[in-house]
């Protein structure tokens, strides 16, 4: 059990989310399915267990904020928001189609989405501004940001990492979706940032590294960091698998771009259960 929520509920939501995403990318021949699959458990834990927010009042001034900086993985976020009741599930059928608000990079026109992204390296500075706003008004809400590991190449992030620690923004939580792949290769072959934890520690962040597909580890990390009195901004390195959930797309570069054929679609549905 996770508070009042049992594991089955989390597993069900993760499964339904992946199936929705698989359907969305298949029917519209869209890219980035691997990027969406790697953050499913992260989103499930955030929305079911961690974020203080409510689909009935998405503009509540006291809500926790989440920015999906790796905006190309938005199909997973849209699917979860629909599951949670932010908007009718039928809207998912319009994903990436003409006249839809469901852009294939996350769009703030969609109920529950805080901010539009799509160009990498924007989410963290904006989140830092939000965290600063909360602090400067003495408000208790927190800001969460999901970054991808290739996205860490962008210098804008490192400017924000430095400033957030300098400002002691302990209301700012960063989750790095560390799936080891980016758009033209493995992250270690493009710009090797190891040892990653040490870098963030040296930047004065409070860091935990966990399995990003494991509900218990995710829950524990968020709980520990939420309760911490360190005064530092918080960061979780979530080790994940790009394409997690459908065996033949896992950890494969081309699935950053590809969408399933008819046959692959059926095969994937079976695997997703």
């Amino acid at each position, binding site marked *: 059990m996770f508070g009042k929520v049992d594991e089955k509920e989390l597993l069900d939501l993760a499964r339904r989310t992946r199936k929705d995403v698989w359907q969305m990318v298949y029917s*519209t021949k*869209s890219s980035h399915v691997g990027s969406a699959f790697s953050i499913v458990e992260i989103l499930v834990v955030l929305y079911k267990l961690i974020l203080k927010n409510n689909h009935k009042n998405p503009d509540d001034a006291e809500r926790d904020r989440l920015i999906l900086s790796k*905006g190309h993985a938005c199909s997973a976020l849209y699917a979860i928001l629909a599951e949670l009741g932010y908007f009718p599930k039928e809207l998912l059928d319009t994903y*990436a*189609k*003409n*006249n*839809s*608000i*469901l*852009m*294939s*990079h996350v*769009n703030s*026109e969609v109920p529950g989405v805080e901010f*539009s*992204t*799509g*160009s*990498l*390296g924007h989410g963290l500075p904006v989140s830092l501004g939000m965290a600063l706003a909360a602090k400067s008004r003495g408000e208790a809400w927190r800001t969460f940001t999901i970054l991808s590991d*290739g*996205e860490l*190449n*962008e*210098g804008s992030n490192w400017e924000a990492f430095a400033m957030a620690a300098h400002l002691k923004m302990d209301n700012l939580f960063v989750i790095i979706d560390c799936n080891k792949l*980016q*758009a*033209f*290769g493995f992250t270690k072959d*493009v*710009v090797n940032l190891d040892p990653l934890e040490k870098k963030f520690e040296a930047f004065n962040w409070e860091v935990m590294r966990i399995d990003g597909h494991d509900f218990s580890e995710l829950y524990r990390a968020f709980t520990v960091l939420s309760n911490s009195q360190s005064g530092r901004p918080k960061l979780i390195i979530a080790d994940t698998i790009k394409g997690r959930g459908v065996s033949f797309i896992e950890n494969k*570069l*081309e699935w*950053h*771009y590809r969408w399933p054929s008819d046959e692959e679609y059926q095969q994937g549905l079976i695997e997703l259960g």
Partner: protein
Amino acid sequence: MRNIFIKILTEKADRDTYLVIGDLGFGIVEPFVKKNPDRFLNAGVAEQNMTGMAAGLALSGFKVFTYSIGNFNTTRCLEQIRNDICYHDLDVTIVSVGPGFMYGSQGYSHHAVQDIALMGSLPNVKLLLPGDSREVEFVMDYIFREQGPKYLRLGRNCEKVFHQESQEVSKINRFGLLADKVGEVALVAASTTLENAFSVAGLLQEKGIAAEVFSCPIIDDDFSDNVRRALDGFKNVFVIEEHISSLGLAAFVRNAFDGREKMIKVFGLKRDSCKVVGNRDYLCEHHEISPSLVAASISKMLNKSRI
């Protein structure tokens, strides 16, 4: 177009050619990498650094290409382009794939609709706006002949060819659709709108209006002279641009005429940012630059002026 670009680049590249990519070009740039592995770098998702590095390579004698899509190697690193490359007049070609609404459904972040205005306002920059593969060949010759900063706006999957085999490509090209008759209407286009212009001309022809298409694959110092000469005699000039209206190709055409001698009407994008998504055709329709809307608008205007 991407493939033709890489093919020619790979053919022409020597030991002084350097290609830097911004973690993009999977399935495209490999032939170059194979031929020149030590003259290639994936700079990662880090366009500011990529562009600064390109300046450093060019300062040290390389002819450099930065390759990415949409806005990422233009607006994301605009100051590196302005100060590092352009001010120092360095031999860097910024190659951006998928201009206008070519990445339509990806959303606003991926719509490159201010690029010509931004790149065209910088010192020393030559704008390369090929509309088909023949024009890609033409601009590649130019790139390897001319030193200095260049911006190459490269369509994505634009594989139609508009130039006849026998037709020589030049900085401005006239496509006389109606063999012996001089058109009453000039449709001026570049890059992705060349195809639209041909569609407009076809629709106008059905309405009995003779239109000729002009393409402008290279905008450099000669552009004003060239365009004045090319459009001499045309009373009605229409510029079609998949770009914020009047600030892209149209700005250069209007400048050439100083706004007085000619009626120049522009079909370009409204400045509002579209809050919904769609494919390229859908977004062109939304912004009223689809061929059918442009043709209807032109014929309405001409009929009015005939009365």
